[in-house]
């Protein structure tokens, strides 16, 4: 599937799309933390969080089928979660014709709820924020400038490298290369090695080009509109819900 990587962006101009990226990133992180610390017994808290995520995804412009398809990334873990009741210990209860662990069922619920809510929140962020905006948001959130610059560089060259690898693969397929077993992977692995050399050499050329244009070791900082107080307030409503639900969950269970 070496091809264009999965851009998750949902095109649109919703209020979430236009919000400053740093507020969105911080809000998403805090919301997910709130979900993660919610006690598993507080089922209604997860329902509240779920409503928030569903509303946000709708506002962001996700269509139902599209949203379902994008949840597919967590499927292996969902499968794992469903195995837990059968291997977990503790008091056994009968569900249908199986005897399963009561604690294990709670664990399945816990992982499913938190994984799906976390994925949903991440999808809202990823779906409404173009890559350069995320990079800028990270910078404004005081992520070390060097890391932010590396991330920016990575994205600048990602499509180039992905497409170069795709061309190599096309060339191999055109020469009837159709590997089906691991021990036939040598040409592909050699291509990956060659790709590393090409990437590294490209990095050196880019560095030389940067030096010739006056690079001093740090990237110039571009000015952008910072998030307004109103935006921060609006964004923080979202994690307030999950954190309040978690706190209420602790108080009531």
């Amino acid at each position, binding site marked *: *599937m070496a091809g264009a*990587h999965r851009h*998750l962006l949902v095109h649109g101009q919703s209020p979430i799309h236009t919000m400053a990226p740093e507020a969105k990133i911080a809000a998403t992180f805090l919301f*997910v*933390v709130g*979900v*993660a610390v919610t006690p598993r017994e507080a089922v209604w808290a997860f329902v509240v969080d779920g409503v928030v995520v569903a509303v946000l995804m709708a506002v962001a412009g996700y269509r139902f089928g599209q949203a379902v398809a*994008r949840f597919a*990334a967590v499927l292996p*873990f969902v499968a794992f979660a469903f*195995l*837990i009741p*059968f*291997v*977990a*210990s503790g008091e056994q209860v009968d569900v249908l014709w199986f005897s399963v*662990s009561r604690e*294990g069922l709670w*664990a*399945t619920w816990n*992982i499913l709820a*938190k*994984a799906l*809510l*976390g994925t949903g*929140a*991440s999808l809202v962020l*990823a779906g409404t924020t173009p890559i350069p905006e*995320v990079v800028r948001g990270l910078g404004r959130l005081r992520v070390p400038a*060097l890391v932010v610059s*590396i*991330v*920016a560089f*990575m994205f600048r060259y*990602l499509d180039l*490298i*992905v497409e170069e*690898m795709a061309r190599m693969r096309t060339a191999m397929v055109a020469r009837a290369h159709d590997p089906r*077993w*691991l*021990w*036939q*992977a040598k*040409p592909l*692995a*050699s291509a*990956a*090695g060659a790709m*590393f*050399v090409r*990437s*590294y050499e*490209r*990095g*050196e050329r*880019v*560095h030389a080009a940067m030096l010739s244009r006056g*690079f*001093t*070791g740090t990237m110039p900082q571009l000015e952008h509109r910072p998030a307004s107080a109103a935006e921060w307030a609006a964004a923080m409503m979202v994690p307030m819900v999950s954190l309040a639900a978690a706190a209420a969950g602790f108080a009531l269970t």
Partner: protein
Amino acid sequence: MFAMHAPDGFLEPPVAAVTAVLSAVILMFALRQSRRELKDKQLPLAGITAAFIFAAQMFNFPVASGTTGHLLGGALAAILLGPATGSLVVAIVVIVQALLFADGGLSALGYNVMNMAIVPAFGGYALFLVFRRIMPTNSGGIVGATGLAAAFSVVLSAMAFSIEWLFGASAPVPFDNVFTAMVGVHLLIGIGEGVISALAMAAVLASRPDLVYGIRDLDQEAFAERTRVSTRAFVIGGVLTAALVAIVVSQFAADDPDGLEKVSIEEGFASEATDHALDSSIFADYATSGVDNETLSLAIAGLCGTVITLAVGYGVFRAVRGTRREQPEDEPAVA
């Protein structure tokens, strides 16, 4: 597989918090160390090699009968770029995947970065240095050491996840069940990782051995001219290494479940033996046999470890031999 891109809620919040702090501290150290090594080249080189790792993870490799898997790349990145830069770029890939592609939970980033970037990069690099010492000092030896280090770096990740599970299990599944299943599955995943990493390393050594961080201290001339690997030396070295690793791994398997089991009893979540339905791994059943025939189960586990190690070695051996033959590599192999 299970240790990779774990979603939110997979481990309990305290473990997520502790691993997040640990990962952040180690990454800051890696960032500074990488800066010292690469100077002002760090920005473009780390950025573009991060793009390479990201792209390489999207590249599908054949595994068996048309099914495919992909490279994880932690150990390979560390051997090519050094553990500091290697762990940094893989961590950046993991973080970006969570932020922009919803792969792995945001609250799970601490343990995902730990298990997918820090442990395989630093652990894999340490293993590489050990294997490099055992292997002959030529391109075949380096390729073999890369393959073994990459294979076992995946197992290290599985162990790291199991240990995190011990402290922050979100379900009452006993540690040794999780450990056995995780390590078993990841031994198999490790074969693919080892073979692909070794072959990729062979391609890099053939053209630019001077780029490989892991052999900076060695004589580059020896690698540039593609020394022919003495088949016998390679096989003997491989078998010895496999035996050594099997001993080490089985000792780990022998001692630690006991010691860690004790902890889990104290922590109060140890429990009666349960069915090993946790995974399709054949190893899950061997370790189930329980305490009364531990010797047997260990012997079998050790044997399997050796066989798998040899399989990795065999794949590497075929690859190295393949570079010398003029024929294409497409005739069916007798495995």
